[in-house]
């Protein structure tokens, strides 16, 4: 009887400790500030999935910071951000073409055509060629 009681107590306590550890673990993964790296991609709010890490802080429409750089995102955070009027976030990782496509990206050829149209009258100039090249590269990198 006593042995059974003691055993019961131990099991209870053990599972309680396990539960606590799990809570702490969850908490850590929620608040952990992951080291940022320079490679980032722009993701539409609808396409946020669990464990994406913010590469840039998220600012609300009033300009205040809603989430700090390095925060690990969850899908539910995505819903909340959407309610706050945020449309996209920058997360760590390289742009993969499939996701870029899903986010409504324009093809590089299309970007080039649009830019060429804009620059059509000035592209013969050396300075404008440099600007064109830099802007083209920028647009490809931030393509959503």
């Amino acid at each position, binding site marked *: 009887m006593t042995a059974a009681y003691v055993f019961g107590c131990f099991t209870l306590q053990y599972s309680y400790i396990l539960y606590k550890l799990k809570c702490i673990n969850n908490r850590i993964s929620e608040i952990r500030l992951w080291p940022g790296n320079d490679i980032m991609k722009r993701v539409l709010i609808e396409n946020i999935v669990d464990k994406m890490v913010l590469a840039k802080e998220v*600012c609300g429409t009033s*300009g*205040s910071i809603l989430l700090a750089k390095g925060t690990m995102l969850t899908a539910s955070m995505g819903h909340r951000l959407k309610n706050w009027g945020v449309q996209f976030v920058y997360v760590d990782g390289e742009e993969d073409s499939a996701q870029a496509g899903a986010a409504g990206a324009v093809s590089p050829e299309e970007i080039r055509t649009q830019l060429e149209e804009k620059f059509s*009258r*000035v592209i013969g*100039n050396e*300075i404008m060629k440099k600007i064109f090249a830099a802007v083209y590269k*920028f647009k490809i990198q931030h393509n959503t």
Partner: protein
Amino acid sequence: MKDAAAIKKTLENVSTIPTLPVVIEKITRLLQNPQTSAEEIGKAITTDQALASKVLKLVNSAFYGFPGKISTITHAVVILGFSTVKNVVLTASIFDAFSKRISLSQNFDMQKFWLHSIACGAASQCIAKHIGFSAKEECFIAGLIHDVGKILMCNYLPEEFEAVVQNRILKNCLFYESEKEVLHITHQELGGVIAERWNLPAALQGAVKNHHYQAPEKDFSTMTGIVHASDILVRALDIGNGGDNRIPQMSEEVWINLGFENIQLQTLLEDIGSEVDKATVFMQLV
């Protein structure tokens, strides 16, 4: 339709052109006195409550780097410094004076126009930072108001404005080329009228009057050059719309004098991108 001189005269005589609030002059006077305290500046600004609340909204945005921490104007002065606060007040006043104006032309999008102006301001500030030009905040204002002549024309010379817009669409040219063709006067000169009336600093007036850089014989001014360059970069990045879909030629003089050969254009564009993101808080004032 009026000729160039008549157009300028009409604008000069319009008595309803918005004026800058008296508080600007008061602050400028206070700032000339080294004995002025942050509290005095705070008091001067809070006499205009509507303005004060806008200033607080702006200084608490990410654009100024202290989101959500500044609760009083005096506090803002202490944290951000006298000249920054003065520039915030000037910015808020410019929006107050002009942003309520709606476009009378169906082919001219005021929202996009303001986005272009704000982006130009942010880009000018970025360029100033990159080339080590000290008057960064004035550059923001210069970029913000460089196209103010267009709003004036849209509001006080609607018939002429519409003719320019129609001609611009027909020829798919730059807005100022269309202005020259139709009116023989551009928004630079018209903007100059209001810049003079507002008694803005000479450098700001210069940026409004010469940002398309068509008179290279004039003395080179860094601020004008910066606004010229930022206008081109913002157009290239497709942020907002100042009234046409073309890109003007970057002046070689500006390119060389600002030292663009030595700066990383890619890094500058990245900076402009993120600053413009933060500066969109100004769109709430529109």
